[in-house]
């Protein structure tokens, strides 16, 4: 895998807009998944979204991407509603949804759909280490390979913001390392990364700031260099120390 081989994308080098969520409430099936959520995320670097299971991290990510709308409150990027910014972002789902085609055709599909430069495909595949598997059916890839392909497809969109939902859950260490390198490189190129993760070690390695969600609210939001040594909230402290938090 080579570093920085895909052509630098211009849009990402522009300043990514800041995310603001105000008094967000999200009810699904009568249950308040998120409630009174207030959050402001900076334009740069990697933000880790952490918290115990069922605390609404994935739904928060979908709100940020504009896939769903809040029951109450607003989600904006530089004062633009999130649903109008979907096309400038990319979201990689926890279980990547790959088309029933070859690895290469999965990249071709988004490049064609977005009228992107079709010749970037090989560079993108090389960047995620899948060039030698270009002709294989995407559905036959291993879990780690599928995640890398989904990442390459996301990068093909030239996103200003990259939203990742547990990109390395239940993957082998080699795959985790490869994926983390891709994420770091994207961030270095100016792409804003928001990452849902359970892995405290991963958050330590990648994150510039950490948002800790608990029971549908922001329990804590602080820079990584503060969060890990001196967490402000009791739940975050317990979580970092490996205690069970519900």
């Amino acid at each position: 895998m080579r570093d920085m081989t895909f052509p630098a994308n211009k849009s990402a080098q522009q300043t990514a807009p800041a995310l603001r969520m105000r008094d967000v409430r999200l009810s699904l099936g009568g249950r308040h998944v998120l409630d009174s959520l207030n959050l402001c995320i900076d334009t740069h670097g990697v933000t880790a979204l952490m918290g115990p299971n069922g605390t609404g991290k994935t739904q928060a990510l979908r709100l940020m991407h504009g896939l769903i709308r809040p029951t109450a409150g607003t989600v904006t990027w530089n004062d633009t509603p999130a649903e109008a910014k979907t096309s400038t972002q990319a979201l990689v789902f926890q279980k990547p949804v790959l088309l029933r085609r070859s690895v290469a055709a999965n990249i071709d599909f988004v490049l064609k759909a977005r009228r992107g430069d079709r010749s970037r495909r090989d560079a993108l595949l090389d960047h995620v280490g899948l060039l030698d598997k270009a002709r294989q059916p995407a559905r036959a890839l291993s879990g780690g390979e599928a995640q890398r392909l989904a990442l390459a497809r996301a990068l093909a969109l030239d996103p200003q913001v990259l939203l990742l939902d547990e990109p390395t859950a239940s993957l082998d260490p080699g795959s985790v390392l490869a994926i983390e390198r891709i994420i770091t490189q994207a961030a270095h190129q100016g792409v804003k990364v928001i990452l849902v993760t359970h892995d405290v070690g991963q958050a330590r390695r990648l994150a510039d700031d950490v948002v800790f969600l608990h029971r549908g609210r922001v329990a804590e939001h602080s820079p990584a260099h503060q969060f890990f040594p001196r967490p402000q909230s009791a739940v975050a402290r317990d979580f970092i120390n490996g205690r069970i938090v519900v």
Partner: protein
Amino acid sequence: MQDFGDAFGLAFGLVLNPSADLIEIVGLSLRVSLSACLLACLIGLPLGALLAITRFPGRGAALVVVNALMGLPPVVVGLLVYLALSRAGPLGFLGLLYTPTAMIVAQTILIAPIVAALSRQVLETLHDEYAEQFRSLCLTRWQIMQALLWDGRMALITVALAGFGRAVAEVGAVMIVGGNIDHLTRVMTTAIALETSKGELALALALGLVLMIIALGVNALVQGLRMRGAAQEVAHA
């Protein structure tokens, strides 16, 4: 009944040593029904895809209608097409009645709803899986339809075969709009009906067996292509 024994003997004789007339009839059957199947796919697949991905008021009613049209009686379709293409009808000036084109039109009308309804079902299941990813990619409706049709191609081949099977086996519509004219519009099913009416039951049954062998051959061919396609995808590793 010795008709069965006679029929099998006759059928194998016909297959092994087909007469020029039989080849012409089989050729016309295939040409008419394959053309109708292609046209029905061109109409039915996009329609099925559109119904699979769009939500609009009255969609439930539209699905009921399309599903009900799957049961269109061939005779009724034949009658409607006859009335339209008859010299006294609105499209009579085209002079299409009693031509293979009229038969293709009738069979297309007969099987397009089948292709639309079955493909809608196949593609809706596929779309449930892809929908959120597609929304994330901000795809247009047209792009989504194209993607679904391509990714569902294996299942859609079976849908097309179902349509072809119905077309090649029906007699009611082609009899009325084709007229069963020798050397012009006579196909397998109308030939079978004719031989039955002449009391040549063994010959009629033999022709029926030939029709089944053809249907079997088409299905085997498509299955072979599918397996080759699947094998190629893996072989490119």
